[in-house]
Protein backbone atom coordinates (compact mmCIF):
# COMPACT_ATOMS: atom_id res chain seq x y z
CA UNK A 1 0.00 0.00 0.00
CA UNK A 2 1.43 3.45 -0.86
CA UNK A 3 2.51 5.73 1.96
CA UNK A 4 1.46 9.37 1.84
CA UNK A 5 1.48 12.28 4.27
CA UNK A 6 -1.59 13.44 6.15
CA UNK A 7 -1.33 16.68 4.18
CA UNK A 8 -1.63 14.76 0.92
CA UNK A 9 -4.37 12.56 2.34
CA UNK A 10 -6.56 15.60 3.10
CA UNK A 11 -5.64 17.16 -0.24
CA UNK A 12 -6.61 13.95 -2.06
CA UNK A 13 -9.90 13.66 -0.16
CA UNK A 14 -10.84 17.20 -1.19
CA UNK A 15 -9.96 16.54 -4.84
CA UNK A 16 -11.84 13.25 -4.98
CA UNK A 17 -14.95 14.59 -3.30
CA UNK A 18 -15.02 17.77 -5.38
CA UNK A 19 -14.92 15.64 -8.50
CA UNK A 20 -17.80 13.56 -7.15
CA UNK A 21 -20.04 16.38 -5.84
CA UNK A 22 -20.24 19.69 -7.63
CA UNK A 23 -21.85 21.46 -4.66
CA UNK A 24 -18.56 21.29 -2.73
CA UNK A 25 -16.47 24.46 -2.81
CA UNK A 26 -13.60 25.83 -0.76
CA UNK A 27 -13.11 29.20 0.88
CA UNK A 28 -10.51 30.70 3.17
CA UNK A 29 -7.54 33.00 3.48
CA UNK A 30 -4.71 32.51 0.96
CA UNK A 31 -6.25 29.25 -0.23
CA UNK A 32 -5.44 30.02 -3.88
CA UNK A 33 -2.25 32.05 -3.53
CA UNK A 34 -0.52 29.52 -1.36
CA UNK A 35 -2.90 26.64 -0.97
CA UNK A 36 -3.24 27.91 2.61
CA UNK A 37 -0.22 28.07 4.95
CA UNK A 38 0.07 24.30 4.80
CA UNK A 39 -0.62 24.01 1.05
CA UNK A 40 -3.58 21.67 1.54
CA UNK A 41 -5.68 23.36 -1.16
CA UNK A 42 -2.94 23.63 -3.78
CA UNK A 43 -4.11 22.66 -7.24
CA UNK A 44 -7.81 23.11 -6.51
CA UNK A 45 -8.04 26.40 -8.41
CA UNK A 46 -6.55 24.81 -11.53
CA UNK A 47 -8.60 21.64 -11.37
CA UNK A 48 -11.89 23.16 -10.17
CA UNK A 49 -11.93 26.75 -11.40
CA UNK A 50 -14.61 28.87 -9.81
CA UNK A 51 -15.01 26.51 -6.88
CA UNK A 52 -12.44 28.03 -4.56
CA UNK A 53 -12.74 31.51 -3.08
CA UNK A 54 -9.83 33.36 -1.53
CA UNK A 55 -11.31 35.50 1.20
CA UNK A 56 -10.38 38.66 3.05
CA UNK A 57 -9.01 38.17 6.56
CA UNK A 58 -12.54 37.95 7.93
CA UNK A 59 -13.11 34.78 9.93
CA UNK A 60 -16.63 35.77 10.99
CA UNK A 61 -17.38 36.51 7.35
CA UNK A 62 -15.87 33.23 6.21
CA UNK A 63 -17.84 31.05 8.60
CA UNK A 64 -21.05 33.08 8.28
CA UNK A 65 -20.87 32.92 4.50
CA UNK A 66 -20.10 29.21 4.60
CA UNK A 67 -23.12 28.55 6.81
CA UNK A 68 -25.41 30.70 4.68
CA UNK A 69 -24.40 28.88 1.52
CA UNK A 70 -24.90 25.53 3.24
CA UNK A 71 -28.48 26.51 4.09
CA UNK A 72 -28.94 27.10 0.36
CA UNK A 73 -27.72 23.78 -0.97
CA UNK A 74 -23.94 24.13 -1.09
CA UNK A 75 -21.24 22.17 0.74
CA UNK A 76 -18.58 24.63 1.85
CA UNK A 77 -15.17 23.60 3.13
CA UNK A 78 -13.80 26.61 4.98
CA UNK A 79 -10.19 26.75 6.05
CA UNK A 80 -9.55 28.75 9.19
CA UNK A 81 -5.82 29.39 8.93
CA UNK A 82 -5.20 28.51 12.56
CA UNK A 83 -7.79 27.15 14.96
CA UNK A 84 -6.86 30.04 17.24
CA UNK A 85 -8.59 32.38 14.77
CA UNK A 86 -11.92 30.59 15.12
CA UNK A 87 -12.30 32.75 18.21
CA UNK A 88 -13.11 35.58 15.77
CA UNK A 89 -16.04 33.55 14.41
CA UNK A 90 -17.46 31.91 17.50
CA UNK A 91 -20.88 33.51 17.07
CA UNK A 92 -21.12 32.01 13.60
CA UNK A 93 -19.95 28.62 14.89
CA UNK A 94 -21.89 28.43 18.14
CA UNK A 95 -25.02 30.53 17.62
CA UNK A 96 -25.59 29.96 13.93
CA UNK A 97 -23.95 26.84 12.51
CA UNK A 98 -24.50 24.59 15.52
CA UNK A 99 -28.05 25.68 16.23
CA UNK A 100 -29.90 26.37 12.99
CA UNK A 101 -31.03 22.79 12.47
CA UNK A 102 -32.48 22.50 15.96
CA UNK A 103 -33.93 25.94 16.48
CA UNK A 104 -35.60 25.87 13.06
CA UNK A 105 -37.16 22.51 13.86
CA UNK A 106 -35.08 20.42 11.48
CA UNK A 107 -35.95 22.42 8.36
CA UNK A 108 -32.42 22.42 7.03
CA UNK A 109 -29.20 20.45 6.75
CA UNK A 110 -26.00 22.28 7.65
CA UNK A 111 -23.24 20.52 5.71
CA UNK A 112 -20.28 22.75 6.59
CA UNK A 113 -16.74 21.48 7.09
CA UNK A 114 -14.40 23.81 8.96
CA UNK A 115 -10.77 22.76 8.56
CA UNK A 116 -8.89 23.79 11.67
CA UNK A 117 -5.08 23.51 11.76
CA UNK A 118 -4.37 22.97 15.44
CA UNK A 119 -1.73 22.45 18.07
CA UNK A 120 1.85 23.55 18.42
CA UNK A 121 4.32 23.64 15.55
CA UNK A 122 7.34 25.73 14.62
CA UNK A 123 7.38 27.73 17.85
CA UNK A 124 4.56 30.15 17.10
CA UNK A 125 3.54 30.75 20.68
CA UNK A 126 0.28 31.47 22.43
CA UNK A 127 -2.02 32.62 19.61
CA UNK A 128 -1.09 30.04 16.96
CA UNK A 129 -0.64 26.81 18.92
CA UNK A 130 -3.89 25.98 20.66
CA UNK A 131 -6.00 22.84 20.82
CA UNK A 132 -9.65 23.84 21.26
CA UNK A 133 -11.52 20.56 20.79
CA UNK A 134 -13.32 20.87 24.11
CA UNK A 135 -14.80 24.23 23.15
CA UNK A 136 -16.50 22.51 20.24
CA UNK A 137 -17.53 19.25 21.91
CA UNK A 138 -19.34 21.39 24.47
CA UNK A 139 -21.73 22.76 21.83
CA UNK A 140 -24.65 20.52 20.84
CA UNK A 141 -24.96 20.46 17.07
CA UNK A 142 -21.27 20.35 16.21
CA UNK A 143 -19.38 17.23 15.20
CA UNK A 144 -15.69 17.06 16.07
CA UNK A 145 -13.22 14.92 14.14
CA UNK A 146 -9.59 14.53 15.24
CA UNK A 147 -7.63 12.33 12.81
CA UNK A 148 -4.30 10.97 14.01
CA UNK A 149 -3.10 9.29 10.81
CA UNK A 150 -3.12 9.95 7.09
CA UNK A 151 -5.49 7.01 6.61
CA UNK A 152 -7.97 8.33 9.17
CA UNK A 153 -7.70 11.89 7.89
CA UNK A 154 -8.68 10.91 4.36
CA UNK A 155 -11.50 8.58 5.39
CA UNK A 156 -12.92 11.02 7.92
CA UNK A 157 -12.73 13.96 5.51
CA UNK A 158 -14.63 12.00 2.90
CA UNK A 159 -17.35 11.19 5.42
CA UNK A 160 -17.42 14.82 6.55
CA UNK A 161 -18.07 15.86 2.95
CA UNK A 162 -20.94 13.41 2.59
CA UNK A 163 -22.73 14.21 5.86
CA UNK A 164 -25.51 16.63 6.67
CA UNK A 165 -24.14 18.22 9.83
CA UNK A 166 -21.35 20.69 10.61
CA UNK A 167 -17.89 19.28 11.23
CA UNK A 168 -15.04 20.84 13.15
CA UNK A 169 -12.18 19.04 11.44
CA UNK A 170 -9.16 19.26 13.73
CA UNK A 171 -5.91 18.95 11.80
CA UNK A 172 -2.81 18.74 13.95
CA UNK A 173 -0.17 20.72 12.12
CA UNK A 174 2.68 18.56 13.38
CA UNK A 175 1.01 15.52 11.84
CA UNK A 176 0.73 17.01 8.32
CA UNK A 177 4.08 15.53 7.28
CA UNK A 178 3.61 12.18 9.03
CA UNK A 179 3.30 9.46 6.44
CA UNK A 180 1.02 6.47 6.63
CA UNK A 181 -0.43 3.78 4.43
CA UNK A 182 -3.42 4.94 2.42
CA UNK A 183 -5.03 2.63 -0.12
CA UNK A 184 -5.55 3.88 -3.64
CA UNK A 185 -9.07 2.52 -3.75
CA UNK A 186 -12.10 4.35 -2.40
CA UNK A 187 -12.90 4.15 1.33
CA UNK A 188 -14.60 6.22 4.01
CA UNK A 189 -14.47 6.11 7.79
CA UNK A 190 -17.83 6.67 9.47
CA UNK A 191 -18.06 9.18 12.29
CA UNK A 192 -18.51 7.63 15.73
CA UNK A 193 -16.29 4.64 15.07
CA UNK A 194 -13.21 4.43 17.29
CA UNK A 195 -10.14 2.55 16.16
CA UNK A 196 -8.16 0.23 18.40
CA UNK A 197 -4.68 1.16 17.24
CA UNK A 198 -2.99 -1.50 19.37
CA UNK A 199 -4.37 -4.43 21.32
CA UNK A 200 -3.39 -4.94 24.93
CA UNK A 201 -4.59 -6.50 28.20
CA UNK A 202 -3.03 -4.52 31.06
CA UNK A 203 -4.12 -0.92 30.54
CA UNK A 204 -5.96 1.24 28.03
CA UNK A 205 -4.78 4.58 26.70
CA UNK A 206 -7.56 6.56 25.06
CA UNK A 207 -5.70 9.07 22.91
CA UNK A 208 -6.53 11.65 20.26
CA UNK A 209 -4.49 13.50 17.64
CA UNK A 210 -0.71 13.54 18.19
CA UNK A 211 -1.11 11.65 21.49
CA UNK A 212 -2.02 8.52 19.53
CA UNK A 213 1.49 8.24 18.12
CA UNK A 214 2.97 8.93 21.54
CA UNK A 215 0.69 6.32 23.10
CA UNK A 216 1.87 3.74 20.57
CA UNK A 217 5.47 4.66 21.34
CA UNK A 218 4.79 4.29 25.06
CA UNK A 219 3.07 0.95 24.45
CA UNK A 220 6.16 -0.27 22.57
CA UNK A 221 8.39 0.67 25.50
CA UNK A 222 6.08 -0.89 28.07
CA UNK A 223 5.75 -4.07 26.05
CA UNK A 224 9.45 -4.68 26.61
CA UNK A 225 8.66 -4.66 30.34
CA UNK A 226 5.83 -7.11 29.84
CA UNK A 227 3.07 -4.53 30.16
CA UNK A 228 0.64 -4.72 27.25
CA UNK A 229 -1.20 -1.47 26.59
CA UNK A 230 -4.27 -1.11 24.42
CA UNK A 231 -4.47 2.15 22.48
CA UNK A 232 -7.93 3.39 21.52
CA UNK A 233 -8.33 6.38 19.19
CA UNK A 234 -11.92 7.72 19.21
CA UNK A 235 -11.21 9.52 15.88
CA UNK A 236 -14.36 11.60 16.40
CA UNK A 237 -15.11 13.14 19.79
CA UNK A 238 -18.66 13.94 18.64
CA UNK A 239 -20.20 11.54 17.90
CA UNK A 240 -18.26 9.39 20.34
CA UNK A 241 -17.90 5.62 20.10
CA UNK A 242 -18.44 4.94 23.78
CA UNK A 243 -18.93 1.22 23.22
CA UNK A 244 -15.41 0.62 21.94
CA UNK A 245 -13.87 2.72 24.70
CA UNK A 246 -15.92 1.06 27.43
CA UNK A 247 -15.20 -2.42 26.05
CA UNK A 248 -11.49 -1.73 26.26
CA UNK A 249 -11.81 -0.50 29.84
CA UNK A 250 -13.82 -3.60 30.73
CA UNK A 251 -10.97 -5.66 29.31
CA UNK A 252 -7.97 -3.91 30.88
CA UNK A 253 -9.54 -2.38 34.02
CA UNK A 254 -7.10 0.50 33.94
CA UNK A 255 -7.32 3.58 31.77
CA UNK A 256 -5.44 6.72 30.88
CA UNK A 257 -7.03 9.43 28.76
CA UNK A 258 -4.71 11.75 26.94
CA UNK A 259 -4.76 14.66 24.52
CA UNK A 260 -2.80 17.84 23.79
CA UNK A 261 -5.51 20.16 25.06
CA UNK A 262 -4.90 22.04 28.28
CA UNK A 263 -5.94 19.73 31.05
CA UNK A 264 -8.59 21.84 32.81
CA UNK A 265 -11.94 21.23 31.16
CA UNK A 266 -10.35 19.43 28.22
CA UNK A 267 -11.68 16.48 26.28
CA UNK A 268 -9.80 14.15 28.60
CA UNK A 269 -11.92 15.48 31.47
CA UNK A 270 -15.11 14.54 29.64
CA UNK A 271 -13.82 11.10 28.68
CA UNK A 272 -12.62 10.47 32.24
CA UNK A 273 -16.05 11.41 33.60
CA UNK A 274 -17.84 9.14 31.15
CA UNK A 275 -15.61 6.20 31.98
CA UNK A 276 -15.94 6.81 35.72
CA UNK A 277 -19.72 6.96 35.42
CA UNK A 278 -20.21 4.02 33.10
CA UNK A 279 -17.33 1.66 33.94
CA UNK A 280 -16.80 2.22 37.66
CA UNK A 281 -17.18 -1.43 38.56
CA UNK A 282 -14.61 -2.45 35.96
CA UNK A 283 -11.94 -0.06 37.18
CA UNK A 284 -9.08 -1.31 39.35
CA UNK A 285 -7.64 2.20 39.66
CA UNK A 286 -8.82 5.77 39.22
CA UNK A 287 -8.94 7.12 35.68
CA UNK A 288 -5.78 9.08 34.97
CA UNK A 289 -5.51 12.14 32.71
CA UNK A 290 -2.36 13.07 30.82
CA UNK A 291 -2.82 16.41 29.08
CA UNK A 292 -1.13 19.75 28.47
CA UNK A 293 -0.14 22.21 31.17
CA UNK A 294 -2.76 24.84 32.03
CA UNK A 295 -0.79 27.67 30.47
CA UNK A 296 -0.85 29.67 27.23
CA UNK A 297 1.77 28.22 24.92
CA UNK A 298 5.10 29.91 25.69
CA UNK A 299 7.48 30.82 22.90
CA UNK A 300 10.90 29.68 24.10
CA UNK A 301 11.63 26.08 23.12
CA UNK A 302 12.89 25.45 26.63
CA UNK A 303 9.43 26.28 27.96
CA UNK A 304 7.32 24.94 25.08
CA UNK A 305 8.73 21.46 25.51
CA UNK A 306 7.40 21.44 29.09
CA UNK A 307 3.80 22.05 28.06
CA UNK A 308 2.76 19.08 25.97
CA UNK A 309 2.62 15.53 27.30
CA UNK A 310 5.28 13.15 26.00
CA UNK A 311 5.49 9.43 25.49
CA UNK A 312 7.58 9.19 28.67
CA UNK A 313 4.75 10.78 30.62
CA UNK A 314 2.44 8.05 29.40
CA UNK A 315 4.98 5.36 30.24
CA UNK A 316 5.30 6.71 33.77
CA UNK A 317 1.53 7.01 34.13
CA UNK A 318 0.94 3.42 33.00
CA UNK A 319 3.65 2.10 35.29
CA UNK A 320 2.04 3.90 38.21
CA UNK A 321 -1.36 2.56 37.21
CA UNK A 322 -0.39 -1.11 36.98
CA UNK A 323 1.97 -1.22 39.95
Amino acid at each position, binding site marked *: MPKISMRDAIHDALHEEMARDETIYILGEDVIAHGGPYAITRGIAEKFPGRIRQTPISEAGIVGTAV*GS*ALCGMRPVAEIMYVDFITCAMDEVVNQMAKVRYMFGGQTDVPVVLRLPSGSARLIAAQHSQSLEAWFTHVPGLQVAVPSTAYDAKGLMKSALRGKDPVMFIEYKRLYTDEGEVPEEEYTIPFGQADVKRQGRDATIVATGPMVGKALEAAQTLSQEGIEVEVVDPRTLVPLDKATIFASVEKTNRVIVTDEEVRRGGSSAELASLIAEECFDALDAPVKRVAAADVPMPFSPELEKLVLPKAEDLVAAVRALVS
Partner: protein
Amino acid sequence: MPVEAPSAEKLIDMYTRMWRIRLFEEQAEYQSSQGKVLGALHTYIGEEAVGVGVCAHLHDTDYITSTHRGHGHCIAKGADIQRMMAELFGRSTGYCKGKGGSMHIADFKVGMLGANGIVAGGFGLATGAGLAAQLRGSGQVAVCFFGDGAANRGPFHENINIGAVWKLPVVYVCENNGYAQWTAQKDVTLVTDISTMASAYGIPGVQVDGMDALAVYEAAGEAIEQARCGAGPTLVECKTYRFHGHNFGDPQQYRTREEIAEWMENNDSIKRLGAYLKDQGILTEAQDEALQKQVADDILEAVRFAESSPYPTPDELHKDVYSYDIA
Protein backbone atom coordinates in the same frame (compact mmCIF):
# COMPACT_ATOMS: atom_id res chain seq x y z
CA MET B 1 -32.91 51.43 -14.74
CA PRO B 2 -36.27 52.80 -13.53
CA VAL B 3 -38.41 50.35 -11.59
CA GLU B 4 -41.80 49.71 -13.09
CA ALA B 5 -44.59 51.05 -10.87
CA PRO B 6 -46.48 48.31 -9.05
CA SER B 7 -49.78 47.19 -10.57
CA ALA B 8 -53.05 47.79 -8.73
CA GLU B 9 -53.12 44.10 -7.88
CA LYS B 10 -49.59 44.26 -6.48
CA LEU B 11 -50.45 47.33 -4.43
CA ILE B 12 -53.48 45.65 -2.89
CA ASP B 13 -51.34 42.62 -2.09
CA MET B 14 -48.74 44.81 -0.40
CA TYR B 15 -51.38 46.70 1.55
CA THR B 16 -52.96 43.41 2.66
CA ARG B 17 -49.60 42.07 3.83
CA MET B 18 -48.95 45.25 5.79
CA TRP B 19 -52.27 44.83 7.58
CA ARG B 20 -51.51 41.15 8.12
CA ILE B 21 -48.30 42.10 9.87
CA ARG B 22 -49.91 44.87 11.92
CA LEU B 23 -52.82 42.74 13.13
CA PHE B 24 -50.69 39.65 13.66
CA GLU B 25 -48.39 41.65 15.91
CA GLU B 26 -51.26 43.26 17.82
CA GLN B 27 -52.76 39.84 18.36
CA ALA B 28 -49.38 38.44 19.45
CA GLU B 29 -49.07 41.23 22.01
CA TYR B 30 -52.57 40.55 23.28
CA GLN B 31 -51.86 36.83 23.56
CA SER B 32 -48.61 37.65 25.33
CA SER B 33 -50.52 39.77 27.84
CA GLN B 34 -52.75 36.74 28.41
CA GLY B 35 -49.72 34.54 29.04
CA LYS B 36 -50.34 32.47 25.94
CA VAL B 37 -47.60 33.76 23.71
CA LEU B 38 -44.47 32.90 25.60
CA GLY B 39 -41.02 34.40 25.85
CA ALA B 40 -39.63 37.56 24.30
CA LEU B 41 -41.71 39.39 21.71
CA HIS B 42 -40.32 42.10 19.42
CA THR B 43 -43.02 43.44 17.14
CA TYR B 44 -42.65 44.95 13.69
CA ILE B 45 -45.47 47.42 14.19
CA GLY B 46 -44.57 50.66 12.41
CA GLU B 47 -41.99 49.11 10.10
CA GLU B 48 -44.35 47.19 7.81
CA ALA B 49 -43.56 49.17 4.67
CA VAL B 50 -39.93 48.05 4.72
CA GLY B 51 -40.35 44.28 4.73
CA VAL B 52 -43.33 44.41 2.40
CA GLY B 53 -41.84 46.94 -0.01
CA VAL B 54 -38.69 44.88 -0.37
CA CYS B 55 -40.19 41.38 -0.47
CA ALA B 56 -42.71 42.48 -3.11
CA HIS B 57 -39.87 41.97 -5.60
CA LEU B 58 -38.80 38.54 -4.41
CA HIS B 59 -39.78 35.04 -5.49
CA ASP B 60 -40.07 32.04 -3.17
CA THR B 61 -36.71 30.91 -4.56
CA ASP B 62 -35.03 34.13 -3.38
CA TYR B 63 -33.65 34.32 0.13
CA ILE B 64 -34.02 36.68 3.06
CA THR B 65 -32.38 36.76 6.46
CA SER B 66 -34.01 38.49 9.35
CA THR B 67 -33.53 39.82 12.85
CA HIS B 68 -34.95 39.37 16.34
CA ARG B 69 -37.84 41.52 15.00
CA GLY B 70 -38.67 38.97 12.37
CA HIS B 71 -42.43 38.37 12.17
CA GLY B 72 -42.89 41.09 9.57
CA HIS B 73 -40.22 39.63 7.32
CA CYS B 74 -41.85 36.19 7.57
CA ILE B 75 -45.26 37.51 6.56
CA ALA B 76 -43.83 39.75 3.86
CA LYS B 77 -42.00 36.74 2.38
CA GLY B 78 -45.15 34.64 2.41
CA ALA B 79 -44.95 32.53 5.54
CA ASP B 80 -48.11 30.96 6.91
CA ILE B 81 -49.51 32.87 9.90
CA GLN B 82 -51.04 29.76 11.44
CA ARG B 83 -47.70 28.03 11.75
CA MET B 84 -46.15 31.31 12.91
CA MET B 85 -48.71 31.77 15.67
CA ALA B 86 -48.35 28.13 16.70
CA GLU B 87 -44.60 28.70 17.06
CA LEU B 88 -45.23 31.71 19.32
CA PHE B 89 -47.46 29.47 21.42
CA GLY B 90 -44.66 26.88 21.64
CA ARG B 91 -46.69 24.20 19.87
CA SER B 92 -45.53 21.26 17.78
CA THR B 93 -47.32 22.56 14.67
CA GLY B 94 -45.19 25.71 14.69
CA TYR B 95 -42.58 26.36 12.04
CA CYS B 96 -39.84 25.13 14.34
CA LYS B 97 -41.93 22.46 16.11
CA GLY B 98 -41.92 24.77 19.12
CA LYS B 99 -38.13 24.72 19.39
CA GLY B 100 -37.50 28.21 18.10
CA GLY B 101 -40.13 30.67 19.26
CA SER B 102 -40.52 34.28 18.20
CA MET B 103 -36.84 34.97 17.58
CA HIS B 104 -36.24 31.93 15.38
CA ILE B 105 -39.13 31.55 12.98
CA ALA B 106 -37.95 30.30 9.61
CA ASP B 107 -39.65 28.99 6.49
CA PHE B 108 -37.08 27.53 4.14
CA LYS B 109 -39.79 26.65 1.59
CA VAL B 110 -40.31 30.35 0.87
CA GLY B 111 -36.64 31.29 1.25
CA MET B 112 -37.00 32.76 4.72
CA LEU B 113 -33.71 31.68 6.34
CA GLY B 114 -34.78 32.53 9.82
CA ALA B 115 -35.25 35.26 12.32
CA ASN B 116 -32.08 35.59 14.35
CA GLY B 117 -31.56 36.30 18.01
CA ILE B 118 -28.03 37.57 17.45
CA VAL B 119 -27.84 41.19 16.33
CA ALA B 120 -26.07 41.11 12.94
CA GLY B 121 -26.49 37.33 12.78
CA GLY B 122 -28.07 37.54 9.34
CA PHE B 123 -25.15 39.15 7.50
CA GLY B 124 -23.14 35.98 7.05
CA LEU B 125 -26.18 33.88 6.20
CA ALA B 126 -27.41 36.30 3.53
CA THR B 127 -23.94 36.75 2.07
CA GLY B 128 -23.56 32.98 1.93
CA ALA B 129 -26.99 32.63 0.32
CA GLY B 130 -25.83 35.12 -2.29
CA LEU B 131 -22.63 33.16 -2.80
CA ALA B 132 -24.63 29.95 -3.30
CA ALA B 133 -26.72 31.70 -5.94
CA GLN B 134 -23.63 33.07 -7.67
CA LEU B 135 -21.81 29.71 -7.64
CA ARG B 136 -24.84 28.07 -9.21
CA GLY B 137 -25.51 30.94 -11.60
CA SER B 138 -29.14 30.60 -10.58
CA GLY B 139 -30.20 34.24 -10.73
CA GLN B 140 -31.48 34.10 -7.16
CA VAL B 141 -30.92 37.05 -4.84
CA ALA B 142 -30.60 37.34 -1.08
CA VAL B 143 -31.78 40.21 1.09
CA CYS B 144 -30.29 40.86 4.52
CA PHE B 145 -32.58 42.83 6.81
CA PHE B 146 -30.79 44.43 9.74
CA GLY B 147 -31.26 47.26 12.21
CA ASP B 148 -29.21 50.35 12.87
CA GLY B 149 -27.76 48.64 15.94
CA ALA B 150 -26.33 45.84 13.81
CA ALA B 151 -24.30 48.33 11.79
CA ASN B 152 -22.04 48.64 14.83
CA ARG B 153 -21.16 44.95 14.87
CA GLY B 154 -18.24 43.34 13.08
CA PRO B 155 -20.23 41.04 10.78
CA PHE B 156 -21.70 44.15 9.08
CA HIS B 157 -18.21 45.10 7.95
CA GLU B 158 -16.84 41.66 7.15
CA ASN B 159 -19.80 40.47 5.14
CA ILE B 160 -20.64 43.63 3.22
CA ASN B 161 -17.00 43.75 2.20
CA ILE B 162 -17.13 40.13 1.02
CA GLY B 163 -20.41 40.72 -0.80
CA ALA B 164 -18.96 43.81 -2.47
CA VAL B 165 -15.62 42.35 -3.54
CA TRP B 166 -17.25 39.24 -5.00
CA LYS B 167 -20.18 41.20 -6.48
CA LEU B 168 -22.63 38.86 -4.80
CA PRO B 169 -26.37 39.12 -5.50
CA VAL B 170 -27.17 40.46 -2.03
CA VAL B 171 -29.09 43.54 -0.94
CA TYR B 172 -28.36 44.80 2.56
CA VAL B 173 -31.48 46.53 3.89
CA CYS B 174 -31.08 48.62 7.02
CA GLU B 175 -34.23 49.25 9.01
CA ASN B 176 -33.08 52.34 10.83
CA ASN B 177 -35.67 52.88 13.55
CA GLY B 178 -33.43 55.17 15.55
CA TYR B 179 -32.95 52.86 18.51
CA ALA B 180 -30.66 49.94 19.26
CA GLN B 181 -32.73 48.26 21.95
CA TRP B 182 -33.12 51.10 24.46
CA THR B 183 -30.28 53.27 23.26
CA ALA B 184 -30.78 56.07 20.76
CA GLN B 185 -28.71 55.67 17.63
CA LYS B 186 -27.26 59.16 17.94
CA ASP B 187 -25.75 58.25 21.31
CA VAL B 188 -23.74 55.37 19.90
CA THR B 189 -23.11 56.24 16.26
CA LEU B 190 -21.73 59.54 14.97
CA VAL B 191 -22.72 58.70 11.38
CA THR B 192 -26.49 58.35 11.61
CA ASP B 193 -27.08 57.76 7.89
CA ILE B 194 -26.09 54.11 7.56
CA SER B 195 -26.41 54.42 3.78
CA THR B 196 -23.29 56.58 3.70
CA MET B 197 -21.27 53.66 5.06
CA ALA B 198 -21.72 51.95 1.68
CA SER B 199 -19.00 54.12 0.21
CA ALA B 200 -16.49 52.39 2.49
CA TYR B 201 -17.16 49.20 0.56
CA GLY B 202 -17.41 50.69 -2.91
CA ILE B 203 -21.09 49.87 -3.31
CA PRO B 204 -24.09 52.15 -3.80
CA GLY B 205 -25.85 53.42 -0.69
CA VAL B 206 -29.44 54.55 -0.95
CA GLN B 207 -31.60 56.25 1.65
CA VAL B 208 -35.35 56.05 1.52
CA ASP B 209 -38.37 57.02 3.61
CA GLY B 210 -39.15 53.69 5.23
CA MET B 211 -42.69 54.80 6.02
CA ASP B 212 -43.45 55.15 2.32
CA ALA B 213 -44.16 51.70 0.91
CA LEU B 214 -43.93 52.95 -2.66
CA ALA B 215 -40.56 54.60 -2.08
CA VAL B 216 -39.24 51.42 -0.48
CA TYR B 217 -40.63 49.41 -3.38
CA GLU B 218 -38.85 51.58 -5.90
CA ALA B 219 -35.49 51.69 -4.12
CA ALA B 220 -35.51 47.98 -3.35
CA GLY B 221 -36.58 47.14 -6.88
CA GLU B 222 -33.57 48.83 -8.37
CA ALA B 223 -31.18 47.31 -5.84
CA ILE B 224 -32.60 43.81 -6.33
CA GLU B 225 -32.46 44.15 -10.11
CA GLN B 226 -28.83 45.25 -9.90
CA ALA B 227 -28.03 42.29 -7.67
CA ARG B 228 -29.85 39.88 -9.96
CA CYS B 229 -28.01 41.01 -13.05
CA GLY B 230 -24.58 40.67 -11.45
CA ALA B 231 -23.81 44.28 -10.52
CA GLY B 232 -23.33 43.40 -6.85
CA PRO B 233 -24.81 44.59 -3.58
CA THR B 234 -26.53 47.81 -2.60
CA LEU B 235 -26.97 49.13 0.91
CA VAL B 236 -30.54 50.41 1.20
CA GLU B 237 -31.30 52.36 4.35
CA CYS B 238 -34.97 52.73 5.25
CA LYS B 239 -35.68 55.39 7.86
CA THR B 240 -38.46 53.96 9.96
CA TYR B 241 -39.83 53.82 13.49
CA ARG B 242 -40.95 51.09 15.82
CA PHE B 243 -44.24 52.11 17.36
CA HIS B 244 -44.22 49.72 20.33
CA GLY B 245 -40.77 49.74 21.87
CA HIS B 246 -37.98 47.22 21.71
CA ASN B 247 -39.97 44.38 23.21
CA PHE B 248 -43.50 43.89 24.45
CA GLY B 249 -43.57 45.38 27.94
CA ASP B 250 -40.79 47.87 27.25
CA PRO B 251 -41.59 50.94 29.45
CA GLN B 252 -39.84 53.11 26.83
CA GLN B 253 -38.32 55.57 29.25
CA TYR B 254 -35.75 56.49 26.64
CA ARG B 255 -38.21 58.36 24.40
CA THR B 256 -41.14 60.72 24.84
CA ARG B 257 -44.83 60.02 24.33
CA GLU B 258 -44.89 63.03 22.02
CA GLU B 259 -42.24 61.55 19.78
CA ILE B 260 -44.12 58.26 19.53
CA ALA B 261 -47.47 59.98 18.93
CA GLU B 262 -45.98 62.14 16.20
CA TRP B 263 -44.90 59.08 14.22
CA MET B 264 -48.03 57.04 14.85
CA GLU B 265 -50.45 59.82 13.99
CA ASN B 266 -48.66 61.49 11.13
CA ASN B 267 -46.35 58.93 9.63
CA ASP B 268 -47.99 55.53 9.72
CA SER B 269 -47.03 53.65 6.56
CA ILE B 270 -50.29 51.72 6.44
CA LYS B 271 -52.40 54.87 6.68
CA ARG B 272 -50.23 56.48 4.03
CA LEU B 273 -50.56 53.61 1.58
CA GLY B 274 -54.30 53.28 2.29
CA ALA B 275 -54.82 56.98 1.56
CA TYR B 276 -52.83 56.66 -1.66
CA LEU B 277 -54.83 53.66 -2.83
CA LYS B 278 -58.09 55.47 -2.21
CA ASP B 279 -56.82 58.63 -3.83
CA GLN B 280 -55.86 56.62 -6.90
CA GLY B 281 -59.24 54.90 -6.97
CA ILE B 282 -57.65 51.51 -6.44
CA LEU B 283 -59.44 50.84 -3.15
CA THR B 284 -62.80 51.98 -1.78
CA GLU B 285 -63.63 52.48 1.90
CA ALA B 286 -65.87 49.43 1.78
CA GLN B 287 -63.19 47.31 0.19
CA ASP B 288 -60.69 48.52 2.78
CA GLU B 289 -63.00 47.52 5.62
CA ALA B 290 -63.64 44.13 4.07
CA LEU B 291 -59.93 43.58 3.54
CA GLN B 292 -59.10 44.41 7.16
CA LYS B 293 -61.91 42.20 8.43
CA GLN B 294 -60.67 39.28 6.36
CA VAL B 295 -57.14 39.71 7.72
CA ALA B 296 -58.45 39.96 11.28
CA ASP B 297 -60.49 36.79 10.79
CA ASP B 298 -57.46 34.98 9.38
CA ILE B 299 -55.46 35.94 12.44
CA LEU B 300 -58.15 34.75 14.84
CA GLU B 301 -58.15 31.49 12.91
CA ALA B 302 -54.37 31.34 13.41
CA VAL B 303 -54.89 31.77 17.16
CA ARG B 304 -57.47 28.97 17.15
CA PHE B 305 -55.04 26.77 15.23
CA ALA B 306 -52.26 27.53 17.70
CA GLU B 307 -54.40 27.01 20.78
CA SER B 308 -55.76 23.72 19.54
CA SER B 309 -52.33 22.38 18.61
CA PRO B 310 -50.44 20.05 20.94
CA TYR B 311 -47.25 20.95 22.75
CA PRO B 312 -44.19 19.03 21.60
CA THR B 313 -43.80 15.66 23.28
CA PRO B 314 -40.71 14.79 25.34
CA ASP B 315 -39.38 12.53 22.59
CA GLU B 316 -38.84 15.68 20.49
CA LEU B 317 -36.21 17.00 22.90
CA HIS B 318 -33.23 15.24 21.34
CA LYS B 319 -34.44 15.30 17.73
CA ASP B 320 -32.92 17.70 15.18
CA VAL B 321 -29.71 18.34 17.10
CA TYR B 322 -28.09 16.36 14.30
CA SER B 323 -29.52 14.72 11.20
CA TYR B 324 -29.19 11.42 13.06
CA ASP B 325 -29.88 10.29 16.60
CA ILE B 326 -26.83 10.62 18.78
CA ALA B 327 -26.26 8.54 21.90
